[in-house]
């Protein structure tokens, strides 16, 4: 049923073999082919720019006012690449190995190997574009360490690596817009995928300024629309990040891969008030020099600096001596939850019993000096100060895990094509490379690998090898899809209830965090599967909106995005319930080792789950994409 199209042969030759066998499009013919790219973050902007450079007619869609605002911009810490500039034992194989192991053996070996290969050229491409990576005094590129690895392979640009990489891709995209190969559609939301004769042939969009619903036809549709962490309401995602594009494609036939695999990032600024609209990440790079601890004693009400060294529990260093504070994110998050559940969490001014732990830089300041710490992390300390009003050079930061990234996404084959021919998915929107847990500094790597190197090879191959009939955006399938979108908008506007979109979104977020968050169990997930359909019913009968669909209406935008979160949330819980094992970020309390680590069940769950939509209010059908491990042997992940 699921055709992965993974090439045969030794893993280090598979991508070359695949490329050698690809069909090509003559340069003169490329402009006759239209490619829709939805999303303008790292994967989307890079793919649109590169396909434009090749000579295709590209239509790029963004709901922002400028492609440069996509949420890739907020990534702080860095981007991994197997350059081995430090000669500290790194290699393409090592990056591949670390990523498969870090993902707790739930990613495809072939895809991950290709990612590690591409990483090397990504840095070349970005440096050539003028990305101002950190440099040493001799002018060479600097690197640092991230969680889950024992080499220094992370390239960075102060605490703004995402912004600098995105500006690189954005500038390449703007050049193509000026050259006329890419047409940019700003402030347009994708509302639906148009499938004709079984092929993805276009999209339906809503102009956020005028409310106009339009259709666009193409030979290929590429979705690079990011992750769906906002299903939790509170997350580190940007406010408008949503699942609508991939969810509507899912409802048109694209299978959804591993929806329950969510990354909870260990180092975020703790939640402070009920009015909080989002959570702010503190880069993982801080764990290079910061030490994580809580008081040994429950109820210790002293201020952090008054607690003597021997009464502090540096629990990560204690439990995981070889990786210490740099254990992978899932491990660090769970450990923080455990010490807080024990009552040893800390609040402002040392107030005991709260939901946070200390991240302490006093040793680093002693060792490196205040100036060096400021140079490396200054902007992060500033962010912290702005939000909390506390000076983290003097008192330890307080941090707590928060939803950050979704490893799940639309299921894709080796070519990044979904189960609908002609629909390609890149970046966080696909489920491909990170398994059950993503390592730090690998999201930027994957977004750019997909955008610069994979999609610009596989999309042309699809075009060259597929015979498509000529089609315009007024074909019956397009008209029908547009009418459906128009009806959906009308339906939302005419419910006439009393609850705002945000109030329902918050309630959904609470259900998801409580039952499908850092720890999950059968009872809780079953309860969530009862609560979510009821909340969906409440949404569709009691939603309140004002204004019309034919104007800029931000509440309406929220509402149709939440409608999709309400369906996706249910699928996430269903996926989490069916996977009776713990792996990476998916921790089932029923499946743990005696010392509380995630316990996989490879005999029954060594597969990617691919869910098929079967209709409104119907349980989805599960398909299994079996995972085999020929190069990295299945083993209990250990960071001790």
């Amino acid at each position, binding site marked *: 049923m699921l055709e992965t199209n993974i090439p045969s042969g030794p893993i280090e030759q598979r991508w070359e073999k695949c490329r050698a066998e690809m069909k090509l499009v003559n340069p003169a013919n490329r402009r006759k082919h239209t490619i829709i790219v939805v999303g303008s973050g790292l994967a989307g902007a890079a793919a649109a720019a590169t396909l434009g450079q090749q000579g295709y007619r590209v239509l790029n869609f963004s709901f922002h*006012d400028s492609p440069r605002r996509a949420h890739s911009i907020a990534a702080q810490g860095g981007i991994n690449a197997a350059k081995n500039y430090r000669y500290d034992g790194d290699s393409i194989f090592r990056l591949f190995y670390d990523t498969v192991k870090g993902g707790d053996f739930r990613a495809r070996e072939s895809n991950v190997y290709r990612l590690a290969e591409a990483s090397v050229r990504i840095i070349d491409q970005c440096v050539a574009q003028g990305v101002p990576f950190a440099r040493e005094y001799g002018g060479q590129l600097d690197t640092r360490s991230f969680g889950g690895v024992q080499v220094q392979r992370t390239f960075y640009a102060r605490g703004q690596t995402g912004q600098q990489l995105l500006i690189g891709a954005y500038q390449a995209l703007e050049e193509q817009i000026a050259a006329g190969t890419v047409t940019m559609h700003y402030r347009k939301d994708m509302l639906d995928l148009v499938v004709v004769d079984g092929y993805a042939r276009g999209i339906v969009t809503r102009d956020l300024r005028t409310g106009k619903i339009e259709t666009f036809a193409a030979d290929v549709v590429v979705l690079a629309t990011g992750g769906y962490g906002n299903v939790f309401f509170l997350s580190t995602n940007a406010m408008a990040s949503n699942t609508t594009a991939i969810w509507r494609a899912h409802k048109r036939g694209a299978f959804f891969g591993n929806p329950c695999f969510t990354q909870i990032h260990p180092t975020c600024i703790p939640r402070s008030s009920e009015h909080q609209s989002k959570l702010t990440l503190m880069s993982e790079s801080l764990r290079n020099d910061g030490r994580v601890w809580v008081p040994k004693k429950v109820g210790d009400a002293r201020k952090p600096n008054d607690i003597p060294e021997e009464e502090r529990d540096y629990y990560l260093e204690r439990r995981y001596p070889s990786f210490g504070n740099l254990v992978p994110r899932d491990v660090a998050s769970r450990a923080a939850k455990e010490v807080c559940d024990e009552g040893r969490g800390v609040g402002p001014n040392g107030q005991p019993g709260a939901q946070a732990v200390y991240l302490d830089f006093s040793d680093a300041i002693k060792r490196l000096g205040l100036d060096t710490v400021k140079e490396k992390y200054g902007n992060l300390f500033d962010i912290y100060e702005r939000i909390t009003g506390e000076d983290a050079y003097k008192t330890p930061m307080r941090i707590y895990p928060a939803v950050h990234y979704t490893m799940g996404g639309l299921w894709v084959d080796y070519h990044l094509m979904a189960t609908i021919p002609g629909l390609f998915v890149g970046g966080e929107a696909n489920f491909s490379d990170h398994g059950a847990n993503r390592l730090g500094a690998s999201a930027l790597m994957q977004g750019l690998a997909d955008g610069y190197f994979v999609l610009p090879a596989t999309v042309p191959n699809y075009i060259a090898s597929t015979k498509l009939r000529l089609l315009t955006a007024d074909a019956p399938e397009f008209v029908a899809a547009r009418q459906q979108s128009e009806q959906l908008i009308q339906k939302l506007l005419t419910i006439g209830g009393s609850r705002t979109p945000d109030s329902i979104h918050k309630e959904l977020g609470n259900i998801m965090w409580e039952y499908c968050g850092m720890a999950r169990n059968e009872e809780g997930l079953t309860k969530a599967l009862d609560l979510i359909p009821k909340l969906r019913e409440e949404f569709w009968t009691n939603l309140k909106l004002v204004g019309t669909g034919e104007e800029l209406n931000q509440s309406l935008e929220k509402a149709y995005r939440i409608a999709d979160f309400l369906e996706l949330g249910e699928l996430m819980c269903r996926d989490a319930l069916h996977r009776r094992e713990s792996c990476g970020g998916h921790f089932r309390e029923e499946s743990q080792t005696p010392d509380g680590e995630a316990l996989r069940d490879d005999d029954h769950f060594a597969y990617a789950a691919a869910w098929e939509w079967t209709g409104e209010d119907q349980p989805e059908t599960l398909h299994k994409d079996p995972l085999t491990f020929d190069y990295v042997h299945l083993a209990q992940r250990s960071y001790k």
Partner: protein
Amino acid sequence: MNYTLKIWRQNNADARGEFVTYQVKDIASDMSFLEMLDALNEELLEKGEAPVTFEHDCREGICGSCGFLVNGVAHGGQKATTVCQLAMRHFKDGETITLEPWRAKSFPVIRDLMVDRSAFDRIIQSGGYISVPVGSAPEASTTLVPKQVSETSFDAAACIGCGACVAACPNASAMLFTSAKATHLNLLPQGQPQRDSRTLSMVTTMEIEGFGSCTNHGECEAVCPKEIPIEFIGKLNRDLLRATLCHGQTEGTIRVDAEGIPTSK
């Protein structure tokens, strides 16, 4: 804490706008300015009134989406802070706070506090890039960039394109933005081949887009949430002089239509 808000309401670019006064109550000091507006909007929606439209996304001060004038100052006047990072603890209980959109001819109002900043994208399109088709990049370690050059280039590249510099400038000049974007690339060895054409094109586009000239008020630097220094404007002027002497004023890669409006085609 309670506040009186005077907010500019305007349905669309062609409509007449006006200030409307609202009261917000029970605002916690650790709420952000935009969370305070969220609370107002929830209340308005519950009452069946149209919520206030404002642009925002990351709420971490990096995407550059947000921005309006708070009591006449872009982003509210806290040092190195976008309005999404502005905490309510900086406002006194009972205070009246005035909110209005960026005021600049080149940034037409879309609705309420939201403006159209697409002119910035067109400045980039005219030359704010280094041409390097995928596949043609050399091995990264062959390009050495002295640390100081890299750091200064980064200081310029830190611009988030929010438009506060234009809003603060009495001439609505986009010189701080344009100089930051050009300087980021003009300083680097990789940016040298297109340095002159980039400078000429970006400055020309900036003028065609209707931004005013720089007359050294320094208001832009004062409000810039990324603390882009005004020295970059001087740097751009030197680059412009160099480019003009070497290549004449009209050369470059800018494309304009019959009315002199830059076009992407």
